[in-house]
C-alpha cells in the first residue's frame, strides 16, 4: 500500500512539476493565436522529455549518481565545461523568468506591481532551498500545481468546439493570415518549453536525492512515462482553453493574466482562485528547481559535495552557487525587462542548447559497463536517436527564427 501511495504521489508531483512559466506563457500565446494547430509541438516536446527523463532516471537509479556527474568523464574537460557553463547560465535565465512569473501571479492577486514581489520571491525560493526538506518541496508544490486541471474542467463549461479543435490538432498547418515563420517560431518555443534543460538536471539529481536504487525503477518509469505526459496534457488544456475565449475576440496574449481569463469566464472567482494557486505553485516550484539545478550542474562538474540531503554546511559551495544564482536572477528580473519576454528568450535559448544537454544522456545510458543489463534497449535507442535528430533541427532553427520574427511578433 505504501508503495502505491508513494507512486501516486510521485506521479502527481511529476504532473504538477512539469508545467512552469515557459509552458504557461507559450501555451497561452499559441492557443489564442494559432488555435490547436501547434498541438504536435507540445506532443513532440513532452514525449522527448519523458523518453530522456526515463534514460536519465535509469542512469541515476543504476549508478546511484546523477547523469551529469558522468558527463565530465565522457565529454572531456573542455566540452563538459561548455556543457556545465551553458546549462548554469540557462538555469539562471530560466530562474529569472520563473521569479518573474511568481511575481506576476502575486501582482494578479494583489494588484501591487510585480517588481515589489521579485526580491521576496527570490528570498522565499532561497529559503525553500536552504531549509525545506526535499520531499516536502516536491510534494507541496507538485500537488498544488495539479490545480491546473481547472483548465481541463473549464473546457467542458466553455463553448468548446471539440470537432474543429480536434481537426486543427490532427491537420497541423499555418492558419490563414498568420505568418509562417512566427508559427514555426512558436513551435520551437513549445518544444523548448517542454525540454527546458533544468528539468532533466533536476529529475536525475532529484532521483539521487531521493535515493533511487535499481529497485525504484518502476517508480521512476511511472514518473517519467505517466507524470510528464499528463503534465504535457495540462499545457495542451491551457492552450485549448484560450481557443473558445480569446481567439474569437481577437485577443493576443501578451500578459500572464490573460492566460487565466478563460477560467474566469468558465467558473468566475472560484476558478480564478484555483488558477492563482496553481500558477503560483507551478512557477515557484520551478524557481526552486532552477536554482538547485544551477547548483547541481556546477557542483557535479567540479566534484563538490552537493544536494539537500547533507546539512548546508557540508555542501557549502553547492549552496553558494544556488544563492549566487538566486541573487543574479533577482537582479536580472529587477531590470524591469518584461518577464514574458524573458520567458520567451529563456525557452528559445533553452531549445538552442537542448542537444548539448540531452546528447550525453543518450551516450551514458548505452554504456554496458555502467548500466549492466539496464542498458538502452533497441527501442530506446531508436526513439532516442529520432528525438535527438528533432532536437538538433529545433536547436538549429531556434536562433534564426528568433531573429527573423523578432521574438514572435
Amino acid at each position, binding site marked *: 500500500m505504501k508503495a502505491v501511495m508513494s507512486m501516486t504521489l510521485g506521479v502527481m508531483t511529476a504532473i504538477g512539476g512539469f508545467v512552469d512559466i515557459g509552458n504557461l506563457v507559450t501555451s497561452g500565446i499559441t492557443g489564442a493565436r494559432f488555435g490547436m494547430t501547434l498541438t504536435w509541438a507540445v506532443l513532440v516536446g513532452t514525449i522527448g522529455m519523458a523518453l530522456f527523463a526515463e534514460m536519465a532516471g535509469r542512469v541515476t537509479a543504476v549508478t546511484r549518481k546523477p547523469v551529469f556527474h558522468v558527463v565530465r568523464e565522457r565529454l572531456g574537460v573542455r566540452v563538459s565545461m561548455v556543457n556545465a557553463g551553458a546549462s548554469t547560465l540557462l538555469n539562471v535565465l530560466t530562474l529569472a523568468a520563473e521569479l518573474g512569473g511568481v511575481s506576476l501571479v502575486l501582482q494578479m492577486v*494583489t494588484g501591487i506591481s510585480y517588481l515589489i514581489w521579485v526580491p521576496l520571491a527570490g528570498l522565499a525560493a532561497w529559503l525553500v532551498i536552504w531549509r525545506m526538506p526535499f520531499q516536502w518541496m516536491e510534494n507541496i508544490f507538485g500537488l498544488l500545481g495539479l490545480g491546473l486541471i481547472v483548465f481541463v474542467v473549464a473546457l467542458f463549461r466553455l463553448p468548446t468546439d471539440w470537432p474543429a479543435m480536434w481537426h486543427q490538432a490532427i491537420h497541423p498547418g499555418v492558419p490563414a493570415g498568420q505568418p509562417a515563420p512566427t508559427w514555426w517560431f512558436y513551435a520551437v518555443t513549445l518544444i523548448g518549453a517542454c525540454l527546458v534543460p533544468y528539468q532533466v538536471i533536476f529529475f536525475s539529481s532529484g532521483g539521487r536525492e531521493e535515493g533511487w536504487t535499481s529497485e525504484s525503477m518502476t517508480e521512476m518509469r511511472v514518473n517519467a512515462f505517466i507524470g510528464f505526459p499528463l503534465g504535457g496534457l495540462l499545457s495542451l488544456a491551457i492552450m485549448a482553453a484560450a481557443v473558445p475565449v480569446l481567439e474569437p*475576440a*481577437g*485577443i493576443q496574449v501578451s500578459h500572464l*493574466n490573460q492566460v487565466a*481569463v478563460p477560467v474566469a*469566464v468558465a467558473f*468566475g*472567482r472560484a476558478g480564478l482562485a484555483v488558477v492563482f494557486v496553481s500558477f503560483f505553485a507551478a512557477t515557484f516550484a520551478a524557481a526552486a528547481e532552477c536554482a538547485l539545478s544551477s547548483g547541481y550542474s556546477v557542483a557535479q562538474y567540479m566534484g563538490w559535495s552537493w544536494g539537500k540531503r547533507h546539512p548546508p554546511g557540508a555542501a557549502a559551495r553547492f549552496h553558494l552557487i544556488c544563492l549566487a544564482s538566486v541573487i543574479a536572477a533577482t537582479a536580472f528580473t529587477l531590470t524591469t525587462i518584461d518577464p514574458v519576454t524573458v520567458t520567451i528568450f529563456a525557452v528559445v535559448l533553452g531549445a538552442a542548447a537542448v542537444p548539448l544537454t540531452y546528447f550525453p544522456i543518450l551516450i551514458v545510458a548505452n554504456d554496458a559497463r555502467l548500466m549492466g543489463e539496464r542498458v538502452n534497449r533497441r527501442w530506446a535507442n531508436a526513439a532516442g536517436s529520432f528525438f535527438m535528430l528533432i532536437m538538433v533541427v529545433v536547436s538549429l532553427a531556434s536562433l534564426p527564427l528568433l531573429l527573423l520574427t523578432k521574438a514572435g511578433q
Partner: protein
Amino acid sequence: MAVVSDLASAQLAARLGLRGQSFPAFTDGNITDAENDADSVNSTFGSRQPPDSRSDALRQKMLQALSDATSALTDLRVAVRMDDRTQVTKALAEVGGALRHFEGIQQELQ
C-alpha cells in the same frame, strides 16, 4: 491589429468584473496592461511619417481611432477603479465604439 486585441482584452475583463466573475485587482490588471500596450502603439505609430497623400488621409483616420481607443481605455480603467457600474458601462460602450471603428478601418484596408 494589436490595438484591437488590447480593446477586446479590456472589454472582456470589464464585463467579467461587472458580472462578478473576477477580482477587482485582476480586472484592473488586465485593463491597465491593455491601456499601456495601446499607449505604446499610439506613440510609435504617431512618430512614423506617411509616404504619400492617400496614406496620409488614412493615417489621420488611424491616429484619430488610436487616440479614441486609448482615451476609452483610460476612462474604463478610471471607472473600474472607482467601482462605479454606470461609468463602467458607459466606458464599455466607448470601447465597443472604438472597436467597431477599427473594424471599419480594417475593411477599408483590405
